[in-house]
């Protein structure tokens, strides 16, 4: 297990590294550079050159990358072109909002998937089973942003219960988190329902039943623990979709998080900011997946044994 985790850690670092290189190179290949944009249309060559010197874009690309990596290790991702502040502090201001949104959405989606998925798997063919299929299909067919717009229309414009945007405490979190969560529910729900169904057909469930254990206990203790393993995998894989969903929701609800930053950074060729965001999201993915590996070991004793 230790060896496995070390292996995974190496892999994780390699993934983040590869993403850093890719994004860095891609950005340098793109037309238009930050110095020109910062300088504006009628800036003199000298001004642009001085900006270029300031941003470091006048150096050879390998050199730029080396400097970037060197600084990144000390936690310095450069200065945002647009905001003129260190990227870390720009991101630092937006990050808590995004984390709150992402975590709430994840929690919400897992709760819904668990509640509905287990109930559906226990009673195949029942109304709750049919209802869970409708929920899954609707969640997959409905784009997050439209769901967000509908939520705004109903709960904000018509009913006025929740604010339509901004970050003003918990009430402003409800609608965007719901939109993101409902987009993630279908996969989790389907995977849980399917693994729960096959687990309920396992021999040891039959054994438990033959010894008179209560159905509720069999479902929620014996089977659910086994059935939750594939769902963990799905959550790990879907981190990217979660982040994607968060970015979209932020745009719909004018929520001041990472997503808003990313979209505005696009317009201004804010290299340092885009780089930091790409690397940051990769790091989140990698960390969450390591965490899930550890969770696996907690849930399944067969994984726990050291190799």
């Amino acid at each position, binding site marked *: 297990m230790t060896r496995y985790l070390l292996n995974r850690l190496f892999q994780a670092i390699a993934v983040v590294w590869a993403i850093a290189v890719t994004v860095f190179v891609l950005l340098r290949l793109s037309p238009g550079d930050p110095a020109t944009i910062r300088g504006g249309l009628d800036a003199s060559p000298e001004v642009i050159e001085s900006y270029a010197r300031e941003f470091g874009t006048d150096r050879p690309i390998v050199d730029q990358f080396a400097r970037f990596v060197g600084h990144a290790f000390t936690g310095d991702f450069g200065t945002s072109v647009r905001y003129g502040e260190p990227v870390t502090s720009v991101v630092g201001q937006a990050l808590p909002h995004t984390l709150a949104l992402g975590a709430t959405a994840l929690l919400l989606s897992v709760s819904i998937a668990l509640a509905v998925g287990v109930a559906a798997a226990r009673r195949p063919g029942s109304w709750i089973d049919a209802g869970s299929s409708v929920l899954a299909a609707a969640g997959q067919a409905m784009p997050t942003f439209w769901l967000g717009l509908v939520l705004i229309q109903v709960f904000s414009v018509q009913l006025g219960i929740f604010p339509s945007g901004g970050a003003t405490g918990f009430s402003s979190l409800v609608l965007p988190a719901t939109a993101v969560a409902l987009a993630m529910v279908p996969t989790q729900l389907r995977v849980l329902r399917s693994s729960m169904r096959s687990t309920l057909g396992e021999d040891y469930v039959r054994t438990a039943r033959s010894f008179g254990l209560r159905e509720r206990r069999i479902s929620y203790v014996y089977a659910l623990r086994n059935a939750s393993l*594939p769902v963990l995998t799905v959550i790990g894989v879907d981190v990217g979709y979660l982040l994607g969903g968060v970015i979209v929701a932020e745009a719909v609800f004018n929520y001041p998080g990472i997503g808003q930053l990313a979209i505005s950074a*696009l317009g201004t060729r804010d290299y340092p900011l885009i780089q930091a965001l790409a690397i940051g999201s990769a790091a989140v993915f990698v960390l969450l997946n390591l965490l899930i590996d550890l969770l696996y070991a907690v849930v399944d004793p067969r994984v726990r044994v050291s190799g």
Partner: protein
Amino acid sequence: MAEIASSADGSRVVAARTHGPALGTLRALSWFRSRPRTFQLGCALLAAILLLSFGGPIVLGSDPSEQNLSDYLLAPSPAHPFGTDATGRDLLSRVLHGGRPSLVISTFGMLGSILLGLCVGMLAAFGGRMAQRVTGFVVDVQLALPYVLVAIVLVSVAGASIPLLVLMMVLAGWVQVGRVVRSIALRERSKDYVKAAAVVGASRARIARRYVLPSVLPVIVALAPLQMAAMLVIEATLSFLGMGVRPPQPSWGSIMLEGKNYIDSAWWLTTFPGLAIFLTALSLLLIGDGFERAEGGSLDRVQSIAADDQGENLAPVIAGRVEP
């Protein structure tokens, strides 16, 4: 195969494929009628949407970009069944036109992602150790990047265009296909029939193509509509974020982007294109589910296949298991 066997001395072999094309159509028809009601509904819905998107504008004859400022933000009425937008354009005709880029991009995106995913998945399952490592790594890298962020980077590099959007669809979708394919192929590979083929002298490529691929294809068939539904949603999302097809060409997502500004006064601007996306994606999901049910599974199964993959990663450390 039929004619080979019957022309050899096996006179008792039934020639199974002697029917003509007419009989084939009849068979397809009876197959269709034996599908679940939901599948038939999905097909009908999709056919209607395709017809309206590609044929509707011709019949209607109206120009989606024709502005008429006096018709500013009209609510749905017999003259404008879907209402009008802020520049007085007829929303119905815009929604009908807006289907084209969405459908084209998601179709090609689906095809591309399936093709790429199929290749990578088979390579991951049947390639050498190196190929497996590399593909695993590439998959991880792709998964670590949210597709929206990838789109942001790519649009900033190359500017939005239909080929680029298709490329982004492929990037957003191939991993899912690849993981499913790899998962099935690995499971099949561990079965004895693969060893049996090796024992009669079949090469690894031959085993992958002739023996294992037929087991992968049915799942691909069920996955394709699912994949296309996802593409449709992603395309709309990107358009909505302003990274989609350029105006004046409308697309469902970009119509909704404009509509967002009038959300508290003109509900129809976001509702109708939203419904269009929803119904199209839904029809695709119903079709995928119908295919999968023909194989005795369900969409649950298709989506769960790759989730068992974690078992592959952890297999070597599971207690007492010995690596040959």
